[in-house]
């Protein structure tokens, strides 16, 4: 449980951190809360030569309601988000998901930016980020770029983030109209990661679903948005029969993971169950 040797440096600003990444190249890794990276380093699964600590950059830790969107600084901790009232009823899935990550200590230290950059296929945030149609803001030597959530998660522990870029902010559009959201999770009992995590954002016009956005984590080798479920809901009355039949189309046509906690077909079944639970919870 002792990492291999490395050099520790701390960046005081995003620009300084970008400069440090440039300087050290592939050899460097960003350290935010450290709750994804340090465990891997302790087991020597990851042996970077340089750690650039961005966990203390004050300009990265905030949650702001900017009217049409909520801006979450990359160094906001899970606990910050779990206890934030910036998200309102529409985006309640954010504090809900935050409160289901790890445990108190992990939430106190782990950050949303670190979790997203790590892109663990069983992490909670990717589902919520996808369902909310968020934009990921990253900064590199060439300046800032915006990546839509749908383009960000590219595979098993892989993202669209370049080696010399820093994830700085998550921008979550505030939905218009009558919109509600929820996150429902079936936990892997040992690690508390998601076997299935489903984020659902539902807009309603009276009793009718006017828009739906459903995303899963834990089910496949990367989080994904489930358009089968959302299109089955859209335009239909939000009653239990319709929710169940939409949920039954969950996780079709994706490569489903299996392990000793949940085989592929059981996971698929859970995806249906938790799609139903997340949608039902969202519409209250």
């Amino acid at each position, binding site marked *: 449980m002792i990492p291999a040797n490395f050099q520790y440096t701390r960046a005081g600003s995003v620009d300084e951190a970008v400069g440090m990444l440039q300087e050290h190249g592939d050899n460097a890794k960003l350290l935010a809360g450290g709750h994804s990276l340090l465990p891997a380093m302790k087991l020597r699964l990851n042996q970077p030569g340089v750690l650039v600590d961005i966990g203390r950059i004050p300009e990265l830790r905030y949650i702001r309601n900017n009217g049409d969107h909520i801006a979450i600084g990359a160094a906001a901790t899970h606990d910050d988000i779990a206890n934030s009232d910036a998200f309102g009823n529409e985006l309640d899935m954010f504090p809900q998901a935050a409160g289901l990550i790890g445990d108190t200590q992990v939430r106190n230290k782990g950050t949303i930016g670190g979790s997203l950059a790590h892109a663990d296929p069983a992490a909670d945030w990717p589902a919520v980020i996808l369902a909310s149609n968020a934009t990921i803001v990253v900064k590199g030597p060439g300046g800032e770029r915006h990546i839509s959530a749908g383009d960000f998660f590219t595979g098993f522990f892989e993202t669209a983030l370049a080696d010399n870029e820093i994830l700085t902010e998550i921008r979550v559009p505030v939905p218009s109209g009558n919109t509600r959201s929820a996150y429902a999770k079936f936990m892997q*009992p040992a*690690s508390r990661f998601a076997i299935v995590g489903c984020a659902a954002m539902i807009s309603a016009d009276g009793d009718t679903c006017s828009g739906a956005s459903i995303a899963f984590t834990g089910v496949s080798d990367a989080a994904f948005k489930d358009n089968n479920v959302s299109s089955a809901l859209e335009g239909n009355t939000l009653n239990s029969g319709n929710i169940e039949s939409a949920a039954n189309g969950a996780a079709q046509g994706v490569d489903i993971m299996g392990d000793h*906690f949940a085989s592929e077909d*059981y996971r698929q079944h859970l995806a249906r169950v938790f799609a139903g639970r997340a949608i039902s919870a969202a519409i209250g």
Partner: protein
Amino acid sequence: MTYIGKSVKRVEDKRFLTGKGRYTDDIVLPGMTYACIIRSPYAHAKITGIDTSAAEGMEGVVAIFTGKDIAAAGVNGVPCGWQVNFKNGDTMKEPPHPLLVADVVKHVGDNVAMVIAESREIAKDAAEMVEIDYEELDAVANAAKAVKDGAPQVHPDAPGNLCFDWELGNPKEEVDAAMDAAHHITKLDFTNQRLIPNAIEPRSAIGHYESAGDKYTLYTTSQNPHLTRLLISAFVLGIPEHRVRVVAPDVGGGFGSKIFHYTEEALVVWASKQINRPIKWTAERSESFMTDAHGRDHVTTAEMGFDAEGNIVGLRVNTLANLGAYLSTFAPCVPTWLHGTLLQGLYTTPKINVDVTGVFTHTTPVDAYRGAGRPEATYLLERLLDTAALEMNMDPAELRLKNFIPPFDGVEQEGYATQVALQYDSGNYHRVLERALEMVGYDDFRKEQAEARANGKYLGIGFSTYIEACGIAPSAVVGALGARAGLYEVGQVRVQPTGKVSVYTGAHSHGQGHETTFAQVVADKFGIALDDVEIVHGDSESVAFGMGTYGSRSLAVGGSAIIKSIEKVLEKGAKIAAHKLEAAEGDLEFAEGKWTVKGTDKSIGFGDVALTAYVPHDYPEGLEPGMDFSSFYDPANFTYPFGAHIAIVEVDKDTGSVKLKRFIAVDDVGNVINPMIVDGQIHGGVAQGIGQALFEGAIYDENAQLINGSYMDYTMPRADDLPAFEIDRTVTPCPHNPLGVKGAGEAGAIGSTPAVVNAVMDALSPFGVKNLEMPLTPERVWRAMQ
């Protein structure tokens, strides 16, 4: 001033609560070095080459040892402390368990080399630089597969991977005849899965050789330091015992896994002499998973026969016990004498036969884990009973009450002789079940269950009524059964000149609260304040001898040894008091801390008598000065706690998740010295038993790799998995020890597991499900409902 029977707050708590506990890894010695053990990544492989040169060249590396060094030094492997013979009389197979393997590794985590360096960091870095070449061989992890023809062989001298075969009870023909005549037979095939103990403190050992006095000290996370000293000195390293001191300081939980003598303990002692500096080794959690002795792992077929009225007429059991790759210290005794002997349960079963085969596999050694053999026996019996009740359309509680052995106190009524070699001491089995039924509100529950089912909710209730044999153990009896040690205990009582009392016990506390419970007994017997008593344990230099703590033995055996010494003190004290009071000894009575001449107000206090013993100016003629007695207590019998546990669960139809809603435990552990501590022992045991039912279990793949060897993969109960426990007790004193106590450490873990599984089976009965393998994970339960 009485302490016995009161929930006295623990004496030891202050140091633990303020961060002043002293665990092995907390100890730092001048000049200390740090060891990292390089372990086999393969379950079965030939070591074809080891290159230590790069590591040896690193700054801060002190020494590197391999299996060749150990072999060249003539160091033995760690021995086994219990012998079970084959049915034909042949001695069990007992292959060597080397400290470092030179040729063929036999389980993942097997020791291959030891790197010693100036710091933990350097040791770890250097270990990565040691290059080891392996030729991987086929491996087998499962006992049922290991006994098949053509299975990979663990040891060349144990053909068929057989360690022993063993049988107990009535002759097989008699049991077969009883079963043939049965009206109904309930049969279950199941695995009592392998558990990994996971004391939260990882094992640690510090070896310290001091050349000046040619003296060896071992600090270690042990439940029985004296036994470790005996094994290291006499069997492994051949060092004179009086030159070896073993200290087990504060120990962070054991649950059996810290009973055994481990290779790392001998390694740090041996290597400390080679480098002439102290060496500390502390396990990483992944090492704990790979090398702490595991528990359970039985593959069993069990059949119980009943007559038309539901009376049990016979029991037939066949078990394959997975022993792992090597024989751990008490491994052979667990599936045999601690398992087969418990198959009478609480019932009047007239014919019982149990057949056990001990099997080697390419896995971590298996040995005693909380309950050790008795949970396996109880699981088997209690699952059979609830299943039989279902099959025969009888009430599971009624079926038990019908078959219970009638009450007996062991004084007026004789102890109960079982078909499987034991003589139960005292019991009143109806009383615990009746009390538990009252607590659960049985009739109301059945109504609630029926209503819930009608609404698509699946509730279940499960029963378990258990007995266990603990207070381990009468030496002559266990000797006849294969133990290579006596299982008495030692208690020394030293009254200091001022009347303060130091007690030295061979029992070892690693959570049990001996410093409080034992002090309560001593303070009461002498009529002095609790504060005036100190309990010393865990250091072979201060405690004369001891057999340690396991098998719920500390108070029943260790406490009894202390009582013997207390009696010797009081006997001598009376002589001194009589002299000082100028009265005959027979005219004195001792109460409330003083000797009084009966019918007078003439008295002398305990402290004055103690002072007189050490300042013997005016003193009985011929009497030795001083007041310090040591006693060995060898129990006349095991003790037999028993109880009734009831679980209520709800199964989520959609996911298969099991929610434990209530857990009721009524236990009878004999007399109770400190109810608060006994309740705590029950809580902890119950939680571990629930862990086996719902969460825990080692999983090996086809290459005998442990695939859930970390806390990210091995599930243990957390606070929000468990309800508040509802517990009560009855008291049936043990008739054969002076305190009338039976032991409480394992009871919870023995009783609880089948109650939970039975409850889930009850919930699933509308689906026609009769048996599922533990742990009852959501997927298993969900599949069963499909």
